[in-house]
């Protein structure tokens, strides 16, 4: 079995070991918790609402920028391997690609996408 198979097995082994320990201990509590024991902590006062909400992610513009750069990362993995073989051509091509993205980053910075309060 190759390295990838080992990686998969190690992943599953860790997932199951930690998950099962945690789950067994959670299921074998001495007693059922009372209602006040289960109130979420916010400093002592009982919350009025569920904490879950459609959270206003104010850094969404930055998240979009991440998507653009993450696409670029996908191209860069194979690019890095063939870089030395392809030589200067690979360097210039990737430089052009990155420069376009960096312009986007500078624009986002100018538009104050990295601060939200």
């Amino acid at each position: 079995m190759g390295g990838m198979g080992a990686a998969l097995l190690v992943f599953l082994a860790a997932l199951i070991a930690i998950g099962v320990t945690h789950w067994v201990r959670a299921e074998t509590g001495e007693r059922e918790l009372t209602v006040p024991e289960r109130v979420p902590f916010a400093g002592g006062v009982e919350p009025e609402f569920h904490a879950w909400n459609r959270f206003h992610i104010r850094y969404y513009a930055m998240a979009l920028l991440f998507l653009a750069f993450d696409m670029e990362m996908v191209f860069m993995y194979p690019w890095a391997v063939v870089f030395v073989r392809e030589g200067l051509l690979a360097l210039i091509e990737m430089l052009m690609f990155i420069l376009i993205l960096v312009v986007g980053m500078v624009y986002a910075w100018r538009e104050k996408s990295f601060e939200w309060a």
Partner: protein
Amino acid sequence: MTVLGILVQVILMLAGGAYALAVADRLLSGSGTRVRSALTYPVKRLSFLLLQPITTTERPDYGAWILAPALLGALAAVGAVAVPIGGPSPGGDIATGLVLFGAAMLIVLVAVFIFGFAANSVFPMVGGYRFAAVVLSVGIPFSLVVLTTAIPAESLSVGVIVEAQSSLWFLVEQPLGLPIYLVTAAAIAFWGPFDLPEGADLAGGIVVEASGTRLAMWRISRAALMVTLALMGQAVFLGGYLGPVLPGWLWTVAKTALLLLILALTGRTIARIRVQTFVWFGWVVLLPLALVDVFLSGWIAL
């Protein structure tokens, strides 16, 4: 080496590293702990946490709460497989080891987010969303500096990258690499000064509602994640198992310990960063520096 051998090796490395990190962190906490009591501290702390019942909130996402620490630990373990420990190994031979590692480290975002979200409580939830901002800001520079080490090695296999450093460590050849790696690695492991999802300003953030075994599993998984990040850091920047006289695995252990010590020390001595300052720092400082690192190293490699 068999699969079982890899499994044992990963467990030994991660458990030993996690223990050493807990001891070092205790010694650096400033409470004046002696070495002897610091050595037993992690065991006592773990015993207490295993003894303490797991509390829950009134309507948590039960499954996600169980899954999150397991996922975090599993991601740490799978990232560690890609690193050769004492010499060439099947794990280090994975042709796309760096891709595996990079993917695992970015999925940490999912584990941390669902751990915060699952509690249905305001502090953990804000912590979880905060971590999303952190990882989206450092994900690219982190992947870039790790990937840059593949350029001179002409391979994504970590074993080949280590061998490529037989004449000169990439620490020297790519001077921007390790500093950026350590900063982004600390952020991905939500370790101080980038412990934003667990900050004191959120009373502990994602772990506010976690107690007992749940907290223990989370802490162990996080420590394992730190070890994995240090392991990869020493493999791609400090020449991994390469070194004179001593056996390879000892070099790996020593270099990993060094990186863990640096992380432990900075985590204890530098103030936590504001989330907006961090997002700005990630995009405007770290990303351009990482790009400079890529193209400069590429230029040198040609």
